[in-house]
């Protein structure tokens, strides 16, 4: 295959990855990596580098609109980044001491369950539930723009959300994955934030998580300009288109898209655990 044909195929796949990644808050790696390794025969190290850059591009590309329009909550994102950052440090320190294949397998199975759960709406805490004092003192709340009227929300069960975020960070450090799925689950299920706020804030956060690992990937030569160039341009375009869709997309449709993409991540993790690199 010529370099030109390779570039065009990757550009197309990256567009789809950016679109789905920005809507679900998961980044684009779930599509980029298998297209590169299975279909185009790219070495797994180059695929990991491209996938990492795709997450940063998706995050920033969509966040321009999400932050401006009030879908991504900057305070909640920054607050939880403390947990993911420390989790990542602990995870990186533990790597080498923990059997990562077993961990991938367990995480994959957990995610399969989460994917099934995510497609179902759950009861959201109404205004009668007493506010979490932590949410009050850290101002973890905001207004969600709606089609007709805006919705005021605030975070619940902040400690539980913070703990899951720490776990998400640790898994990123241990397995070298973005763990956007756990981030969305922490905000949606534990903190009971509106689903669109959860996916858009996860999308906002994963750029920082991925950037933290970028130094080591660049240093090791995983970031090959010839592969990353179409990945980055395609993902940016896709994420900007995705960000325009989010406001109009019904939440139950978004939940189904999220569930399907998380199920794909789960299958990848199970295969990783069994020693198949995709």
């Amino acid at each position, binding site marked *: 295959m010529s370099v030109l044909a390779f570039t065009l195929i990757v550009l197309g796949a990256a567009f789809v990855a950016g679109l789905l990644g920005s809507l679900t808050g998961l980044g684009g790696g779930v599509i980029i990596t298998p297209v590169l390794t299975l279909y*185009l025969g790219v070495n797994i190290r180059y695929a990991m580098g491209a996938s990492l*850059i795709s997450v940063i591009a998706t995050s920033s590309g969509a966040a321009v609109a999400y932050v401006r329009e009030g879908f991504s909550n900057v*305070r909640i994102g*920054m607050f939880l980044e403390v947990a993911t950052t420390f989790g*990542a440090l602990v995870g990186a320190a533990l790597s080498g001491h923990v059997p990562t294949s077993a961990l991938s397998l367990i995480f994959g199975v957990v995610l399969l369950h989460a994917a099934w759960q995510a497609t179902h709406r759950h009861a959201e805490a109404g205004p009668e539930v007493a506010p979490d004092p932590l949410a009050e003192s850290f101002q973890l709340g905001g207004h969600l723009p709606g089609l007709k009227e805006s919705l005021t929300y605030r975070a619940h069960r902040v400690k539980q959300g913070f703990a899951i975020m720490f776990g998400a960070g640790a898994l990123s450090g241990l397995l070298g994955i973005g763990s956007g799925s756990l981030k969305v689950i922490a905000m949606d299920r534990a903190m009971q934030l509106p689903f669109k706020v959860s996916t858009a804030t996860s999308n906002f956060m994963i750029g920082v998580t991925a*950037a*933290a690992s970028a130094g080591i990937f660049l240093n090791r030569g995983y970031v090959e300009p010839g592969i990353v160039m179409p990945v*980055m341009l395609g993902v940016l375009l896709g994420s900007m288109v995705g960000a325009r869709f989010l406001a109009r997309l019904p939440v139950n449709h978004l939940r189904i898209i999220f569930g399907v993409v998380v199920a794909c991540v789960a299958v990848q993790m199970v295969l990783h655990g069994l020693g198949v690199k995709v």
Partner: protein
Amino acid sequence: MPGQDEQQIDLLVSGVLKAGLIASSTLVGIGSVLYLFKHGGQRADYSHFQPVQGFLRLSSEKLGRSIITIGILLLVLTPVARVLLTLVAFAKLKDRRYVAIAAIVSTALIASIAGGLLGMQ
């Protein structure tokens, strides 16, 4: 909870990200044209990983690749700029809690990028 101050922070964050993206994608776009003119007809083979030394590897013979690399580096630095500027914004609001939060996140982020680039991990 959110007020005028909050909206200003949102606009600042959004603006920083936009500026970073325009700069990095312009460089990658220019680099890609040069790269494809030179290498577009060659065979794409990335099946083997070739270990390299150093992260920038800029050279005038490989101008397209070098410009793309600088663009990628700018993209990676965009979230860093975002975190640092929110730190400044929270400091202006005299919001000590969030200054501390932004300081923790930015220190850890910069340390891990720098540590990685210098091969300390």
